């Protein structure tokens, strides 16, 4: 499908994205695996776009991974969600913005259930009051962090130093976009473009000069599978599902992968390493992998942010081939330095997957 021709149906799946004054709810996975992206998001929203966003010390996990593993009851997660909303109320905000796609699904599910089943809302209120003494109001607007970047994609483009263009050929970079399942598969009306024609990442890519790769397994899950990943002996499930996607996208020779879900970015990165070490198979050019980016890293790159200050050295798949294609200036000697240019040594190299 051409990037510029959409079936009319996707226009039914537009949603309201608040203009300003956001309450930021952090992601467990992204803080641990891609900590720089959390900071990059705040930098883009606060400084590049100039909006007010509040980072609360008191928020915690939403417990969503435990919920989807079946290890905590539904009402536990709903009450944890209610506490997060109570914190937002306390801080004086009405627009709730989680950076985790699992969380976004959990928050959306809680609100849907409360709307459909008022007695459950009442039960949650009682649980929250009894356990913490708190009350809560449901947010007026709830969107995922990627929705905010999508909303301001043209403002970001106007300040960009680079475009998603291969400087050697002058052609658009070929980009695989992957939408986390819980962004729109549960509630299609809560995703820009719904579940069938999601525009949240494609919109950014188009605005910044790149080309979206359409490939057969584009909508297949990354394979996280919650308990299937947490339990080591079941990890053949996630790696096999991610491999389905790699094998499907490989003939299209993508320059990089971008996702809006912290877990998906992680799996596309690490499973390339694992597949290379187990099977000797690599998916990028010349024995390297296909770089797997968060959308903040993609945004930060076009804005001219330093890749190492954004934490792109924490990917197991090296990002240098992409930086070179975009003509981005970076200092290779600073990649593995610590704070204040501290020498902290370099990571060991994998046996098969080539890295810089």
């Amino acid at each position, binding site marked *: 499908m051409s990037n510029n021709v959409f079936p009319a149906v996707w226009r039914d799946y537009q949603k309201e994205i608040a203009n300003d004054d956001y309450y930021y709810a*952090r992601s*467990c*996975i992204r*803080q641990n695996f891609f*900590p*720089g992206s*959390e*900071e990059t998001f705040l930098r883009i929203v606060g400084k590049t776009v100039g909006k007010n966003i509040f*980072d*609360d*010390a*008191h928020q*915690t*996990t939403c417990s969503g*991974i*435990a919920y*989807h*593993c*079946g*290890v*905590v*009851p*539904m*009402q*536990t997660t709903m009450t*944890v969600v209610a*506490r997060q909303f109570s914190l937002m109320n306390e801080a004086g905000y009405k627009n709730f913005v989680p950076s985790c796609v699992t969380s976004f*699904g959990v928050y959306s599910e809680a609100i849907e259930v409360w709307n459909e089943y008022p007695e459950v809302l009442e039960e949650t209120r009682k*649980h*929250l009051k009894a*356990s*913490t003494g708190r009350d809560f109001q449901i947010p007026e607007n709830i969107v995922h962090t990627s929705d905010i970047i999508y909303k301001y994609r043209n403002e970001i483009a106007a300040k960009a130093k680079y475009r998603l263009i291969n400087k050697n050929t002058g052609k658009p970079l070929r980009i695989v976009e992957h939408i986390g*399942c819980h962004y*729109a*598969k*549960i509630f*299609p009306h809560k995703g820009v473009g719904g*579940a069938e024609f999601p525009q949240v990442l494609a919109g950014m890519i188009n605005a910044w000069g790149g080309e979206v790769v359409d490939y057969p397994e584009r909508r*297949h*899950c990354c394979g*996280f*599978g919650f*308990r299937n990943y*947490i339990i*080591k002996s*079941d990890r053949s*499930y996630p790696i*096999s599902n991610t491999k*389905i996607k790699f094998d499907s996208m490989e003939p299209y020779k993508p320059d990089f992968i971008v996702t809006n879900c912290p877990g998906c970015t992680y799996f596309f990165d*690490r499973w390339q390493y*694992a597949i290379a070490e187990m099977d000797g198979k690599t998916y990028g050019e010349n024995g390297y992998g296909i770089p797997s980016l968060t959308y903040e890293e993609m945004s930060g790159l076009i804005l001219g942010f330093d890749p190492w*200050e954004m*934490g792109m050295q*924490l990917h*197991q798949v090296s990002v240098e081939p992409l930086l070179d294609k975009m003509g981005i200036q970076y200092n290779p000697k600073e990649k593995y330095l*610590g*704070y204040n240019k501290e020498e*902290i*040594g370099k*990571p060991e190299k994998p046996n098969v997957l080539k890295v810089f």
Partner: protein
Amino acid sequence: MSETLYQQLKKDIRFIEGLHACINCGTCTAVCPAAQFYPYDPRLIAITVEKGDEAELEQLLKSDTIWYCGECLSCKTRCPRGNTPGYIIQALRNLSINTGFYAFSEKGRQQIIVKRTVGDNILKHGYCVYIDELTLREHPEQGPIWDWYRNNATSILQRLGANYKGNGAGTMRKISQQDLDELKQIFDETGATERFENLEKNHHEQ
């Protein structure tokens, strides 16, 4: 007289929302990531529970079958009748744990691993996953980059502007004891603590 399994199942919102009337088309199975690699068929789950047969339901609750689903919920988007086998699975898992039937299957017994990792992380750190607890031995797929990151976490996270183990806001901040206490009180109030204790107790008795 105590409630039948089916009566208990019908009280779960996820069962109510997940099953209307299955037309056996198999769309859910066609798109299901679990069905591609496991002996798992979400269409069969839907039609089995639709029958309301107590013996079949008990068998299902004691089986590995209900633990294969990855809860991606791709089935919710695709079902032409608005069913969600993934929701049915959530309700079945809940019932399996509440009745103790989970202990009859290998995959069900694995829930202790989830409790001791994700579950304990939540109450100890306030995060579902936490760098200090995630070792290369348990997660070899993390690769050498993870060892380098973990071994130099303080310096690297400071470079990236995080607030690792620090007070106040920021990436990887320390969750205060007061906030952890509120989480624990919620777990006590809503049944998660009881579930954790039962998982541990049953594990020790096996």
